[in-house]
């Protein structure tokens, strides 16, 4: 077997890629820990200063941004949606991968087609009018509901289940007298755990980062974290040290998830991602 050692050029390229990936995050910390005067100084200051604690306190107590509420709301929204998407996707994925029923291929094709429609952009107007007529604007329900389904999730879990749960296993469980839901719980779910992890992390990140839809249905009094960052943006003066402290706070949960599950993300993306 040919073992490819990286050339010097490859090493330089990789080093550069890692530097470029990390620098804006480092820069976020630098500005977040300085005063606003430092943030706009020329030449720029490249080392962190000592104001991080101050800035964070100012973010959390900012009267208009409602930052703590934003963090809590985002956490609720992202968790509910993640659980729902995992549930719907593993159920449907199991059916599509392991069960025989009339119209299976047609329905799966329909799921694939729906993946190509950017629902949240296409349907904003009627979805917004629906939330208005239900008097659900400015509530978390309005943010959560349109995201409960995810075609990509169904597709991903179908692929995963097909790879990791052989038909014989399902047949054997059936012969043993297990009902379908029981097979899903006892046989399928344990086998597709890595896929669930990737889908879960992905969905959580997506929801945590969502911007357009919360901007439409929520106001500044009941924001998600991204809308709260918007609230830090004063109309006339842009105070970068404050905004950067807010953005730094806003990515802590994601960085945590990444540190804890990073191995799974890389492995999972690589395992199940594409065999279209």
């Amino acid at each position, binding site marked *: *077997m*040919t073992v490819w*050692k990286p050339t010097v050029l*490859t090493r330089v*390229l*990789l080093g550069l*890629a*890692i530097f470029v*990936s990390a620098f*804006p*995050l480092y820069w*976020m910390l630098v*500005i977040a820990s300085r005063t606003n005067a430092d943030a*706009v100084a*020329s*030449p*720029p200051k490249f080392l962190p200063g000592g104001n991080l604690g101050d800035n964070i306190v100012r973010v959390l107590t900012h009267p208009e941004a409602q930052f703590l509420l934003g963090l809590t709301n985002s956490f609720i929204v992202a968790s509910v949606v993640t659980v729902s998407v995992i*549930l719907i*996707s593993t159920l*449907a994925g199991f*059916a599509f991968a392991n*069960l025989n*029923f009339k119209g299976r291929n047609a*329905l799966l094709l329909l799921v694939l087609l*729906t993946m190509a429609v*950017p*629902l949240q*952009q*296409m*349907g*904003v*107007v*009627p*979805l*917004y009018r629906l939330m208005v007529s239900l008097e659900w604007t400015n509530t978390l329900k309005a943010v959560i509901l349109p995201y409960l*389904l995810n*075609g990509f999730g169904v597709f991903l879990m179908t692929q995963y289940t097909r790879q990791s749960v052989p038909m014989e296993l399902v047949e054997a469980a*059936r*012969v043993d007298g297990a*009902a*379908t*839901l029981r097979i899903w719980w006892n046989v399928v779910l344990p086998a597709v755990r890595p896929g669930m992890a990737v889908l879960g992390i992905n969905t959580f*990140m997506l929801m945590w*980062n969502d*911007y*357009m839809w919360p*901007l439409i249905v929520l106001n500044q009094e009941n924001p998600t*974290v*991204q809308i709260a*960052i*918007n609230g830090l943006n004063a109309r006339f003066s842009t105070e970068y040290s404050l905004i*950067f402290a807010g*953005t730094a706070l806003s*990515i802590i949960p*994601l960085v945590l998830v*990444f540190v804890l599950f990073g191995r799974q993300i*890389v492995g999972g*993306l690589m395992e199940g*991602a594409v065999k*279209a």
Partner: protein
Amino acid sequence: MSLDTLPRASRNTHRRDRPPGRRWRSRLDVKAMPYFLVSPYFILFAAFGLFPLAFTLYYSLYDYDLTGTTEWAGLGNYTALLGDDDFWRATVNTVAMFVIATVPQMLLALFLANALNKHMRFRLPIRMSVLLPLVTSVVAVAVVFTQLFARDWGLVNYLLGLVGVENTNWRAERIPSWIAIATMVDWRWTGYNAIIFLAGMQTIPKDLYEAASIDGASRRRQFWQITLPMLRPTMIFVVLNSTIGGLTLFSEPMTFYNGNPDGGSQGQFQTVAMFVYKEAFREFDYGYASAAAWLLFLLILIGAAINFLFVRRIGGTR
């Protein structure tokens, strides 16, 4: 192996002894359960997918004004849009930013994936660090890059100044603003696409490369003649994904202008998604916005089709 065939067989006979009620229930389970399992997706899709799509079409055929009065417009919104300079400018902006962002992104991701595919120490941490930008929120990215691209004291202008380039007003001019926004998109997604490409590369059988080596093919040649063509399914997936994401670009250009959907003083970086948002939620012209949303969908279909044909050719008959 032979051990567990025995109890299973006995359990099997067990099942036949069951009372008819349970047998009936298990038949129902086999027949009906699959539909029950896929139904949550389709029910929710009907409510939050099909319903909005149909109503967007319906709204697009009406004229709405600020007071809420509606009037049948037929295809009026569509013809008005096709004659609307603002809409065309937004379309050009969107397509231009998409091209500026995607072409270098795909090339970088490919070469990065190729580099990550080598044997080296610290392979996992290196692969993980390339994904780091993905965990950063879009708004955070946009905020940081807006500061980096500031005119008077931004780091980018400072560094360009060191090599003698004059200060660029990244936000005021059309092409510089496209470049700045494309940079944000690329920073966030290049590593992610590289990891997906890497996944595709690892499914390519090793013996293909061995045979090529024996035939004396250089590594560069192997990349062009084996890796690229074998990567085609992955590429189709990645390119279609980026097409949908790129043509619905919203958060980055919004944040680049302090959360304002105008996209700069002359709309120099307003995208179609921002145009839809502005028409619907600032002008309250729901009909016009809905028609624009359908045209955006059409744009995505066209973009996807072009890219699909293009990628099919890339790895094709070389």
